[in-house]
């Protein structure tokens, strides 16, 4: 697995660019990821979704279903895609430091 360095911080990542360990997450991680995910600047809306994903993961041990993410944050799926062009899984979850989505994706 690859080790990358960004702003003096080290992150261990897989071939898809997901963080291997949630506890390694820091604000630098989001900064590092945003470029590859087509995001120029992390806005308040981005941050709100990232915070919700992290809280939900810490509390429940899973990423929320898309409907839960929408309902809890108030962002429709369309708006989530506007914020994260790769979508809630590959975009938002990666940036929030959650594990890679699995199953038949």
């Amino acid at each position: 697995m690859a080790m990358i360095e960004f702003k003096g911080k080290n992150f261990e990542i897989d071939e898809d660019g997901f963080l291997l360990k949630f506890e390694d997450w820091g604000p630098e991680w989001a900064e590092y990821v945003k470029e590859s995910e087509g995001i120029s600047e992390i806005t308040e809306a981005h941050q709100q979704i990232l915070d919700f994903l992290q809280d939900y993961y810490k509390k429940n041990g899973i990423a929320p279903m898309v409907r839960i993410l929408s309902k809890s944050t108030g962002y429709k799926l369309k708006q989530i895609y506007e914020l994260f062009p790769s979508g809630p899984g590959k975009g938002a979850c990666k940036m929030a430091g959650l594990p890679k989505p699995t199953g038949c994706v």
Partner: protein
Amino acid sequence: MAFVSSGYNPAKPMENRITDIGPRHFSEFLPPVIAKNKGKWLWHEIVEPGLLMHKAEGGDEVYTVRCGGARLMSVGHVRALCAIADKFCGGHLRFTTRNNIEFMVETLEEAKKLKEYLNAQKFDGGSHKFPVGGTGAGITNIVHTQGWVHCHTPATDASGTVKVVLDELFEEFGQMRMPAQVRISMACCLNMCGAVHCSDIAILGYHRKPPIIDHEWLDNLCEIPLAVAACPVGAIRPTKKEIVTEKGETKTVNTVAIKNERCMFCGNCYTMCPSLPLSDQTGDGLVIMAGGKVSNRISNPKFSKVVVAFIPNEPPRWPTLAKTIRQIVEAYASDARKYERVGDWAERIGWERFFEKTGLEFSEHMIDDFRDPAYYTWRQTTNFKF
């Protein structure tokens, strides 16, 4: 190769982005005779194996030559198909729902010439490139999956096993001597992508060992509740465990525990969680199922039933698999009545006769033990044959 840009600008990924345009409309690709007579077909016949004729209201005819395809194809092969379509069919061709290739022409002479041409094409190793057949009551292409070519959960290979079985049954592809068409399908794990659950004969990749748990990584890579919920028999539960990591540190991690005696090796938990791999060279192999169908012709659609509990993986030629499939096909072909699918035949003569006539061994593995519905698969009657 050096990087060549398509014009996409990674600095502005959303600029000039075309999306949600869907597939091309099929009408753009119709041969003229099909476009002209769409919705006006009167009747059809199978002129000879691999060659169909459709008659339209106005008297137009279209002749369809069907040939086998390996499904997994190179661009070179697709170009060869295009070259044939250009030469004989005005540049038109189609693929069937079982991944055969169909070329359409307007006269019988052209069709016969095309058939002869297709049957003459060979790969360097001697295999037919475009064997003609797959029509009527024969054995057509095998619907199959990715196997070791591309998937990460297979218990066997798809392309390999399919090549083996179609080599074994090759002469049936170009003939129509079965009681009804025989659909053979293949899936490399019991996710059953494709048609194994509803085919006359089905080949299914099967594991026989429980997952190996990578405790050190499980909580990092997996959403533990999803792995727990992935199990159809409740064999997985969350737990904490003290482990020594690869680097030699001792720590307590969140992980799962699997009751091996409850696990039936479905592999669903590995689909959800990369830290639970279970594939195993000697454990993995094949299950054969039989008697499924999707059509409503006479009898309702049926699921296929397990008839062989395990055949080992024997790459590259899987001889036991080839022999067993041949055994089932021969017993069915010689005993079933006209129009009877494999499932119709087995249900008419009774499954105890199916096992007798095919020479397959019946074991406890065939007896359903999955939840309440298992009961309905047992025999609540004294009607059986000795």
